[in-house]
């Protein structure tokens, strides 16, 4: 079991990967990727039980679905650092003939990916379906998912949320990246989410809240979420994060949702993030 400091070191390297990947092709989405780095690191290096010998069916292992597919650089870095494929392949991100498409896809058979995402609002339904399959298979492992807060504007999420409670899908831990930002501005200007906790509770989910940029709180929160599974209700983690976390000039603004840093900005950003495991 890795210590929280070791997890923080991995997160620092993942953040470097994200920045270098989007910088290299001058496209992609650093903001949400950096904000969710601590979470995905904790999930893959602490919480989930899985095999990097990838199978689509993921029988007898925990599986994860990324619904907000635009944070693909984070997903790819974590998968590579976890051992699903060679970190050198990160250099192909968003380039022609790459398995690392702009948004994650199963179409190119990249190990670790079980559905395409990019068009928002579809991942939670798929995660719930996979959780149902686990139940039908008598598989006691868990399904995890992540979606954005802006992404919750999509009505399909609320259909899924209603469904999961109705069908007692209690082997699912769905996390919301509550960074308060989306493309056109802060979520409360674009489409207010108001009391998200009350909304999920009204749909009969168990809700826990945590700071997604504090490794100690993350580990405690994820551990707790696991203890709440199997009790008849789906679990939602409302995770407060900061867009652009880890790079001072990117933090907290929707401006960095989908813009790549230039050469100078990359240098400034990397100077804030120790190279702990070696760049790809």
């Amino acid at each position, binding site marked *: 079991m890795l210590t929280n400091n070791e997890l923080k070191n991995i997160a620092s390297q993942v953040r470097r990967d994200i920045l270098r990947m989007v910088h290299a092709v001058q496209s992609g989405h650093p903001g949400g990727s950096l904000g969710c780095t601590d979470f995905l690191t904790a999930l893959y290096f602490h919480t989930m039980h899985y095999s990097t010998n990838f199978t689509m069916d993921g029988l007898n292992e925990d599986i994860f679905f990324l619904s907000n597919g635009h944070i693909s650089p984070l997903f790819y870095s974590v998968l590579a650092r976890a051992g699903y494929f060679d970190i050198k392949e990160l250099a192909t991100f968003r380039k022609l003939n790459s398995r690392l498409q702009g948004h994650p896809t199963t179409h190119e058979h990249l190990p670790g990916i079980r559905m395409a995402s990019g068009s928002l609002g579809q991942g939670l339904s798929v995660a719930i379906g996979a959780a149902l399959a686990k139940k039908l298979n008598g598989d006691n492992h868990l399904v995890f998912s992540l979606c954005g807060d802006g992404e919750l504007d999509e009505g399909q999420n609320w259909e899924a949320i209603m469904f999961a409670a109705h069908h007692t899908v209690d082997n699912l831990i769905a996390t919301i990246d509550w960074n308060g930002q989306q*493309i056109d501005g802060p979520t409360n200007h*674009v489409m207010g989410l108001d009391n998200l906790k009350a909304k999920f509770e009204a749909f009969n989910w168990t809700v826990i809240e945590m700071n997604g940029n504090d490794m100690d709180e993350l580990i405690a929160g994820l551990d707790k979420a696991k203890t709440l599974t199997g009790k008849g209700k789906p679990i939602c983690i409302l995770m407060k994060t900061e867009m652009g976390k880890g790079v001072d000039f990117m933090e907290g603004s929707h401006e960095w949702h989908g813009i790549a840093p230039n050469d100078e900005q990359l240098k400034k950003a990397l100077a804030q993030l120790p190279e702990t495991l070696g760049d790809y």
Partner: protein
Amino acid sequence: MNLKDIQVLNEKETRAGFGEGAYEIGKENKDVVILTADLAGSMKIAPFIKEFPERFVQCGIAEANMIGIAAGLTVGGKIPYTTTFANFSTGRVYDQIRQSVAYSNKNVKICASHAGLTLGEDGATHQILEDIGLMKMLPGMTVIVPCDFNQTKAATKAIASFNGPVYLRFGRPKWPNFTKEDGSDFTIGKAQQLSEGTDVSIFACGHMVWKAIEAGKILEEKGISVELINIHTIKPLDVDAVIQSISKTKCAVTVEEHNIIGGLGDSIAQVAAKHFPIPIEYIGTLDTFGESGKPNELLTKYGLDTPNIITAVEKVISRK
């Protein structure tokens, strides 16, 4: 009318033509309301929003709801323009458009950017290559695919006074801008002839019109007489213009940034099959999804480049 006389004025994004057109029509027509689904920046509508904040509706990332709200706004006499990427404008909300807009005959303008491969690095989830087909199959839907900045601007303005549902498709990359600045060479439903020729008809739409011009110039140097027609209005199709051209040239090549199944090529072939059967070659994607890459790299990889058009023309002439 000669291809070598066509001059590029500048390079601009077609979506920026939409943004400018939206602002100008907003000034002229007080019933125009613009809706978006968290993509105001990408759709270049900041000037409209600044000047007419009360006629701008932010829907959040909820395209299906946006289509319904737009349909409702027409009941009060408004002229709603919905704005998002082409995939989220069509496939995402097909039944909402089908029932609430097309079947209900509502005066909604569905304005879609980032169509086709040329959106580039975002990849297949965003690069819809099926939208022309989806939209032209809907009874009563008018489908417009302008070729450059000026034409997108002209179309954006023209659809306000055109009664009925419209799908307006444009894109993301900077692209050669060559049609008239005042838009006087654009009329909804009327094919735009760019050159007169006798050996082959090339029918193109959208970004691919420029590629066809490039190919046509090279073909003319080789002594092939090309009749190039910009089919900016895919539906209703200017059937007379198509018949007139093919009955003269007796063969055709169609060029589109779309699946060859269901797009412009199919529409032309249907007219030919019924009125004047001729050999046709199709340039378009071959029943495939796209992928990440730079726009021009992708056009090359998927066979939508100038050399492919030249080869297709030579082949179709040999089939006469």
